[in-house]
């Protein structure tokens, strides 16, 4: 096992995300980075995970080509269950089966609330995004939500303009007080700068892990509030050469997810 010295921060994020997964787990998976992250995990250390998508899809094997989104036609002939959203969002997610829900995010705040709806005032937004899709269901219902997104400071406001997907709302018990089930909520936010988790009482996000090339100072600059840092803050292991090979050559051979990111190897960061 040899660590790679030629990987991008996106690749580090994907591999950090995959490391959160244990073999045999049930995952409900959103579009974009979660797709490639969970398929990579299935190809490597977690071959027996079950991957569920919101439109009514249950996968037990890796599709012939990487799905471009969670409703990609290539899924149909590779799934073991293919039917209604009530089959996955209902009888799997609402029923409490997933060990982890993986989400992409546009904006994430101090308490893990996610905004994929709009910037500015909801009734006349400065910038209108697509909306929830199933994200709000993932965030409302899953035992452990992991959000994956590129780390840019403007994506991490202290408070999102619109809570599309509830995290811990205002912290403390506010999530449970809103009616959401105890034992659910954000577990981690994984970005191109590090891994961020939530304090079990205050439910505030903190710096848990940063990446080999990074520093605590740099990570803290990525947030619009003064984010706390774990006293046991860790540095992630880099990806191995074999992990990078599998990710690039087997999971995404056409570079549909990675092409634009291969250009930024870690050595230049």
């Amino acid at each position, binding site marked *: 096992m040899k660590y790679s010295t030629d990987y991008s921060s996106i690749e580090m994020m994907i591999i950090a995300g995959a490391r959160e997964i244990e073999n045999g787990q*049930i995952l409900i998976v959103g579009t*974009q980075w979660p797709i490639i992250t969970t398929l990579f995990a299935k190809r490597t250390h977690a071959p027996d995970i*079950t991957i569920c998508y919101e439109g009514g899809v*249950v996968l*037990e*094997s890796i599709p*012939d*080509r990487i799905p*471009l989104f969670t409703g*990609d*036609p*290539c899924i*149909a*002939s*590779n*799934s*073991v*269950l*293919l*039917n209604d959203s*009530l089959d996955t969002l*209902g*009888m*799997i997610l*609402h*029923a*409490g*089966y997933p060990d982890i829900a993986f989400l992409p995010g546009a904006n994430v705040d101090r308490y893990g609330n996610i905004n994929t709806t709009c910037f500015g005032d909801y009734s006349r937004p400065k910038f209108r995004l697509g909306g929830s899709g199933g994200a709000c269901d993932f965030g409302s219902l899953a035992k452990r939500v992991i959000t994956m997104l590129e780390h840019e400071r403007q994506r991490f406001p202290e408070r999102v303009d619109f809570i599309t997907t509830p995290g811990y709302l205002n912290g403390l018990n506010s999530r449970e007080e809103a009616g959401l089930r105890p034992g659910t909520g954000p577990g981690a936010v994984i970005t191109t700068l590090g891994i961020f988790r939530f304090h079990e009482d205050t439910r505030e996000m903190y710096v848990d892990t940063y990446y080999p090339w990074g520093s605590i100072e740099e990570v803290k600059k990525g947030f619009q509030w003064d984010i706390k840092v774990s006293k046991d803050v860790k540095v992630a292991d880099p990806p191995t050469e074999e992990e990078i090979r599998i990710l690039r050559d087997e999971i995404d051979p*056409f*570079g*549909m*997810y990675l*092409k*634009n990111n291969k250009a930024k190897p870690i050595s230049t960061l």
Partner: protein
Amino acid sequence: MTMDKAIKEFVRDGDVVYLGGFIQHEPYAAIHEIIRQRKKGLTGSSCAGMIALDQLIGAGCLDRVITTYTWNPLPKPAHAFRRCLEKGIPHDVKIEEYSILALTLSYFAGALDLPFVGTKTLMGSDLAKNSSFLGENKLKVIESPFNGEKVCLIPPIKHDIGIMQVQRADSIGNAQAWGVMGDSKYGINSCSTVIICAEEIVDTEVIKRDPGRTIIPGFKVSAVVEEPWGSHPSYVTGCYDMDWKYFSFYDKATESLDGFENYLKEWVYGVKDRSEYIKKIGKKNLDALKAKPWSGNPVDYGYCAQYQEDYVL
């Protein structure tokens, strides 16, 4: 897994047991094994079966029943069910009754773990007024906060274990069934633990050729038992028909208490497993029940498979 082992391992005395199948797909092979293993104190939950509950009640396995209907399909009474409710033989069971839609909605709520579903059925019926072991948790009639009209709230019924016969499943439990499905898809998905009894265990590749037919994903299933003819004397679409002669025999055989005991001795305790039961039915009788083929145009799940160069994140 063998039926013997599956029932031993997963059905515990006192469990709430969902018996899947809406007439067809009833798991008679599993039910006989439950009786053979003399399980006790079970709650049997079955939306619209036939003599499944009758046999379990008569054999003393059940303390509680959740159902909408229990009768021999002939139509003749289910004698053990009658004896129990009329005379407490072999011991009293408590019964919680619903209509098919109300109970199916309860299973639906259970499958999704919804707090409740609001409906306009059941109100006015004595089924809504009477409740036994579920007490206040059977249902509530409230005024709708939207428009003030009366609404019947049906909460989920949670099952410890569910058992159902299906046409085919793979070895990891992805189960496919078709025909008159009734409540079965929601019922079987409302169970913490699931035993799937399959007419045939198939390769996962068969499942993947028609994933729209899967009623429960394998990760929810704890055991898969290959058990052809497992629903006899009921039927499985595309496999075999109801055995009306057997129901007629069962009617006459179990009319008296002694007769019922003798039936169990001969057909349940007296056979080691399902294969002995099937042998006892006899090849000639089985052949006469075999379904004649009526298969559809297969549907197509294909995609074009080409590299989509315009999609790059």
